[in-house]
């Protein structure tokens, strides 16, 4: 009868020690099992893992996107104003008296624009950002930032109104909140799940970048449309709204293909889609 002395499966019966001297037959294994399975598979493993990671990241991106969209749709403009009441950006004192005038003018235009019913009720506030680059920003809570570089180049009321109208479009579409939420959500989740080692972070950045880009370009065009409609409803004309894009086109000097990787569409593309909106709005693509 076999005595159980050990739970490990018994592989042979032991009858007692019997050690004999033995000879050596030298043999070498033809292929070592562990290595033959791993040798030269780096390429295959790379593609497999990259595919998995891309699928995972896209799924994460959309799940986070839906969650953020849902949460943002629940936040009213009053709540937004309350949340970001203390979120203040440093004020920049204009360098030249000219800038002071420009800023005053822009602030007056903002006051005009906010009278429109389309513009969401937020405590708007215009600030100057001291850089040569032409740009404008929408910050959470109703702060509109405009760069000194851009203020200097815009000399006409309609042109300034369109730039501010575009940013108001972002407030209307909640783009700033959605963008903030997406960046925070994706950042937190990927820091926990995906930051496992060397290189994975830049890999994550690439995917995030590509995903963000297509989404963001669409949002920019919607904001352009909002700006155009706002300017038309208040001023009754849209001539000069494309001036911003002409400036950007001259300034950036990026080849057209490079905009594939940009958060904003190319100025040329924006002008043509603006013409399309104008045609729909006033039956005339003269902008």
């Amino acid at each position: 009868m076999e005595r159980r002395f050990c739970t490990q499966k018994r592989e042979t019966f032991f009858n007692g020690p019997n050690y004999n001297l033995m000879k050596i037959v030298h043999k070498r294994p033809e292929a070592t099992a562990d290595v033959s399975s791993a040798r030269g598979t780096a390429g295959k493993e790379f593609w497999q893992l990259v595919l998995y990671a891309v699928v995972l990241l896209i799924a994460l991106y959309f799940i986070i996107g839906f969650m953020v969209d849902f949460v943002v749709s629940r936040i009213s403009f009053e709540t937004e104003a309350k949340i970001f009441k203390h979120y203040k950006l440093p004020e920049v004192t204009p360098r030249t008296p000219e800038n002071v005038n420009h800023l005053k003018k822009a602030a007056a235009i903002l006051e005009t624009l906010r009278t429109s019913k389309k513009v969401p009720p937020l405590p708007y506030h215009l600030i100057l950002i001291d850089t040569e680059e032409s740009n404008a920003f929408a910050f959470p809570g109703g702060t509109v930032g405009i760069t000194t570089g851009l203020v200097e180049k815009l000399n006409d009321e309609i042109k300034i109104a369109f730039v501010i109208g575009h940013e108001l479009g972002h407030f209307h579409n909640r783009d700033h909140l959605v963008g903030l939420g997406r960046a925070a959500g994706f950042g937190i989740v990927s820091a926990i799940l995906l930051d496992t080692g060397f290189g994975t972070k830049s890999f994550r950045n690439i995917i995030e970048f590509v995903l963000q880009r297509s989404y963001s370009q669409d949002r920019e065009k919607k904001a352009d449309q909002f700006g155009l409609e706002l300017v038309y409803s208040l001023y009754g004309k849209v001539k000069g709204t494309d001036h911003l894009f002409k400036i950007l086109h001259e300034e950036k000097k990026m080849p057209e293909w490079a905009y594939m990787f940009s958060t904003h569409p190319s100025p040329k593309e924006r002008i043509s889609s603006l013409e399309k909106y104008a045609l729909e709005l006033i039956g005339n693509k003269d902008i």
Partner: protein
Amino acid sequence: MIITNIEEVPGKKIVAHYGLVTGSTVRAKHVGRDLMAGLKNIIGGELKGYTELLEDARGQAKDRMIEQAKEMGANAIINVRFNTSSIAQGASELYIYGTAVRVE
């Protein structure tokens, strides 16, 4: 395949020694398991997920060693040694080696 971690196979006569056989694998735990282990670390105790993972990996390394021994025509492996080392953040290496022999 008879596996022992002593110098001989008791009750059997070793007729030929074939030399060293090895098997190894490097395993990483996935992020989900890592998170659970992180939580478990707070209260202490056995990390069942890791135990299973290492046990599984050890089994795989052992299978690879046995495969090698079979290829040589051996029917037993004596003096088997296990070696576990953490070679990088989050990756453990399991290495097993022994001497392939033929017994009567």
